[in-house]
């Protein structure tokens, strides 16, 4: 059976014994390292990976081996300390961790290749490599101690929290709020209704993950929703698989369609920003239509990126108080909500608050950008190792049971279609000049 992303009852010893809390401590350790690096300038510690756009193997690994070894050693030591304190077998974890690290490096290697880099990111390759191993030769027993999906995901999510700057939500003013915040919850609610009432999907976390990935921002939103809803790993795998393949199609077809019908670039940009899942794909598609559409698309997507924090928190509360509560059971009190609540979300939110209200105002936007440029690398590595772990723990037989005749696929298709229509309507109402004045953007 698959483990579920955990939420556990609280005791003071949990602060050092539970994975949720260790994810917070580790996440903040990596954040703190980068803040100290930025403020003092005394050292640089970068989460290196293969060079993007390589055409030969030599180009891919040019000059990165010292940085890779340092990254392996430091992350390995910190994760091992966590495992040891939590009561795990630190020795076995330490021996297995380099294997997970190397597999993640291979995923990065493929994802940064010149032809592939625009279309299939590390999540695809990491899941693929893990699934290939587990379903052919089988996951070797000696690697299993380091196959710790939740540990890596939660730590990565706490670091992701730092990247959620609340100041960015006002970037596009009331226009952006309309396109991003008006549409997003409606799509989530529609997909929740469609998935649970019409399709009658068995896995409720899978419904909310697919809904969040579709309406917010793809893989990163799916990860946050999975952790907040205590989803099974297979649920996350399906949601990510769907968002990855449809992102490739949408990022290519939408700019072609917008151009073909002569749509206003501002409306087209907002439409793409509100519907294409991956942020990089939004920028790519927006730029294909020109600087104005590119800027509008990026700003709408930025607001959705920030919404991850709000939505992950809402999902955690929704599942703790409503979905996981038995019908007819007692109402859920504050202490029970606290018991059920995934604690690492607190670290995720704390990191966001720290960077939004303390780091950015005190150090300035440029220094904040420099810190985030470094922390994002660690977050990416931990997510990549989490996807490797998911693949290594999954087998096709168990996954087949979750296919449910293709219901997840139809949930995505119907939900995304609804998202496309509603976002286009709202973008047109707000940005075409028919009702409201057209915003004056500098490009």
């Amino acid at each position, binding site marked *: 059976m698959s483990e579920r992303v955990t939420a556990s009852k609280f005791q003071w010893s949990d602060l050092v014994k539970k994975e949720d809390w260790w994810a917070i401590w580790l996440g903040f350790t990596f954040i703190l390292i980068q803040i100290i690096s930025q403020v003092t300038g005394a050292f640089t510690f970068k989460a290196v990976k293969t060079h*993007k756009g390589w055409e030969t193997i030599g180009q891919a690994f040019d000059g990165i081996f010292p940085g890779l070894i340092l990254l392996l050693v430091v992350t390995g030591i910190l994760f091992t300390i966590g495992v040891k304190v939590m009561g795990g077998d630190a020795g076995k974890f330490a021996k297995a961790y380099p294997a997970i690290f190397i597999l993640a490096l291979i995923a990065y290697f493929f994802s940064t290749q*010149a*032809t*592939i880099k*625009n*279309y*299939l*990111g*590390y*999540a*695809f390759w990491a899941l693929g490599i893990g699934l290939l191993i587990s379903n052919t030769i089988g996951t070797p027993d000696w690697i299993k101690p380091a196959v710790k999906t939740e540990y890596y995901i939660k730590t990565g999510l706490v670091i992701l929290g730092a990247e959620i700057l609340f100041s*960015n939500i*006002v*970037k*596009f*003013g009331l226009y952006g*709020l309309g396109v991003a*915040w008006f549409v997003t*919850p409606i799509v*989530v*609610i529609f997909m*929740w*209704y469609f998935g*649970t*009432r*019409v399709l*009658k999907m068995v896995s409720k976390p899978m419904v909310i993950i697919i809904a969040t990935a579709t309406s917010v*921002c*793809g893989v*990163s939103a799916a990860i946050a929703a999975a952790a907040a809803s205590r989803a099974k790993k297979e649920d996350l795998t399906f949601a990510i698989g769907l968002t*990855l393949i449809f*992102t490739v199609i949408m*990022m*290519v077809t939408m700019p*072609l369609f917008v151009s073909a019908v002569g749509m206003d670039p501002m409306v087209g940009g907002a439409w793409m920003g509100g519907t294409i899942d*991956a*942020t*990089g*794909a939004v*920028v*790519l598609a927006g*730029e*294909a239509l020109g600087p104005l559409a590119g800027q509008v698309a*990026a*700003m709408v997507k930025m607001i959705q*990126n920030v919404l991850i924090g709000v939505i992950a928190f*809402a999902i955690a509360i*929704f599942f703790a108080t*409503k979905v996981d509560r038995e*019908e007819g059971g007692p109402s859920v009190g504050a202490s029970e909500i606290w018991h059920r609540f995934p604690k690492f979300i607190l670290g995720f939110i704390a990191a966001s608050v720290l960077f939004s209200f303390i780091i950015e105002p005190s150090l300035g*936007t440029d220094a904040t*950008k420099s810190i985030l*440029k470094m922390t*994002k690398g660690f977050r*990416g590595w931990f*997510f990549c190792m989490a996807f490797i772990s998911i693949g290594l723990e999954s087998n096709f037989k168990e996954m087949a049971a979750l296919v449910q*005749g*293709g219901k997840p696929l*139809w949930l995505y298709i119907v939900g995304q279609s609804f998202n496309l229509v509603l976002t286009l309507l709202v973008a047109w109402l707000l940005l075409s000049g028919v009702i409201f004045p057209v915003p004056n*953007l500098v490009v």
Partner: protein
Amino acid sequence: MKKNAAPSGKFKIASVVALIATLLAVGYVIVYDPTDFRDEPYGAGDYYYTDVEGFGEIFLGENASIGTEHPVIFAVLFIGWGAICWYFLKKIEKKRKEDSTP
């Protein structure tokens, strides 16, 4: 579809056809690159805004904002709309549980 019924054969066939068509489209896009994206530094593998090359200028630069002249209206709309949606989501879930109880 009947309550809790397994998907029908037609539903499964439609799913397989949709999946194959989607995968073929993805394959076509990657192989033929119809929008000529290959020289661009961005892509579908940039999952969050900070993953995008040059994110500082694109998302946090001076031009990447028109701000809002109405912060109070902005905050009220943000919180108010969130509260309305939260109410409806709870209602839907409550109704689902009531309907699923024998």
